[in-house]
């Protein structure tokens, strides 16, 4: 895996029934432990500054695709450190070939920290330039 959260490989448009419905990219967890899906807090993505909120985003983890609402209930499905997750973003028509600045925010809960800093670990945004081929 690449060291950064956002990986170069895997950035592509999503095709469904012959139509481009969005785009996706892969991420790895930078936390030192895997997390249960219900520990995750919603993701937001920016593409060259254009914002895509949590309702436009699903996650694919170990072959299964989830909405944020579904993940919030899944305390027994695990995202391991060696599993790349795919972030799927809804955008009819997808993205043209080119270089894009991708920004991603999401965080997670850590119960062994004081509640004041429950989600502090994931508070830093991830930014990377990705190439759409």
């Amino acid at each position, binding site marked *: *895996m690449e060291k950064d959260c956002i990986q170069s490989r895997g950035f592509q448009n999503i095709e469904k029934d012959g139509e481009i419905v969005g785009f996706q990219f892969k991420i*790895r967890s930078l936390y030192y*432990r895997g997390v249960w899906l219900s520990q995750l807090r919603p993701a937001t993505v920016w593409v060259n500054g254009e914002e895509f909120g949590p309702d436009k985003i699903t996650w694919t983890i170990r072959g299964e695709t989830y909405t944020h609402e579904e993940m919030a209930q899944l305390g027994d499905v695990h995202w*391991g450190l060696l599993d790349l997750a795919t972030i799927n973003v809804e955008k009819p028509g997808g993205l043209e070939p080119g270089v894009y600045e991708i920004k991603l925010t999401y965080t997670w*809960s850590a*119960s062994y920290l004081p*509640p004041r800093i429950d989600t502090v670990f994931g508070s830093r945004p991830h930014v990377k330039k990705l190439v759409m081929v």
Partner: protein
Amino acid sequence: MRMERKGVKRGVSVYSYAGEYGVTMTLEDIFADIHSMGARGLEILGNSHIPDYPNPSEAWIERWFELMEKYDLVPVEYGHWVDSRLYQGRELSTEESLEMLIRDFKIANRLGFPILRTKLGVIDETLTPVKNWKEFITAALPYAEKYNVVMCPEIHEPTTLDSAMVQEYCEFIDKTGTKHFGLNIDFGIFREKELPKDQMDPGRPPMEHSKPEELGPYLPYVYCCHAKFIEMSDDLEEIYIPYDRIIAVLQENNWDGYVLSEYEGFHRGQPGVASDQVRRQHAMLKRLIGE
């Protein structure tokens, strides 16, 4: 397998390599590193270092024991969590917490780990555990016996040895007489030197620390220690934590167990730094232990 001698023994937590794992090093690379510094004790974190956790494959488990043999490693401590805030907006029930514990007891037992670093959810700045901890730990004791594991909360800064929490843990052990609940002492509680300003959480109140010389009376409760360290100098001294005095106290009290390196320095994101720093720490520990 070689016999384990009595006394203070050296080991490493794979946590030390958090910046390398899956990027520059595989689990086997990390085992090779640990072996090459003459350490034998091993700590892994279940959620972090077992692919397919919580359902490792039979093939992976078989390979696990091959690697223990190949690198002459001893499974010592298995890190796991009771994620009290697993679901947003509520705390786990006693029953749910118990289920989480048992799931990890089984995996730890399968991989040969006798000690667990049991991380509980906390409710305040001084890391006071959740209110129902005694209920689910008590309920878990028969299972811990069945799976032959000792649950050990980690006593970690800013907690001090004389805190109400540590007293409560010790009273619980005395009262129940259990051999399946104890303590893991993280040497960060003995830190003497302030961290650089830019490394501190600005919202955190100032932290108190214990002295190594206070540790003696607690050692009968201690099954394992985290040899937390921040930075090893070129002359092989830890800059922030008084290791000479800590190891001396362990030896004066004839403590028998593993001290497991936990590297938590400032440059751990840089490739190669963890290997270098843990290696330096083991050169120091070897000298202090008198191996």
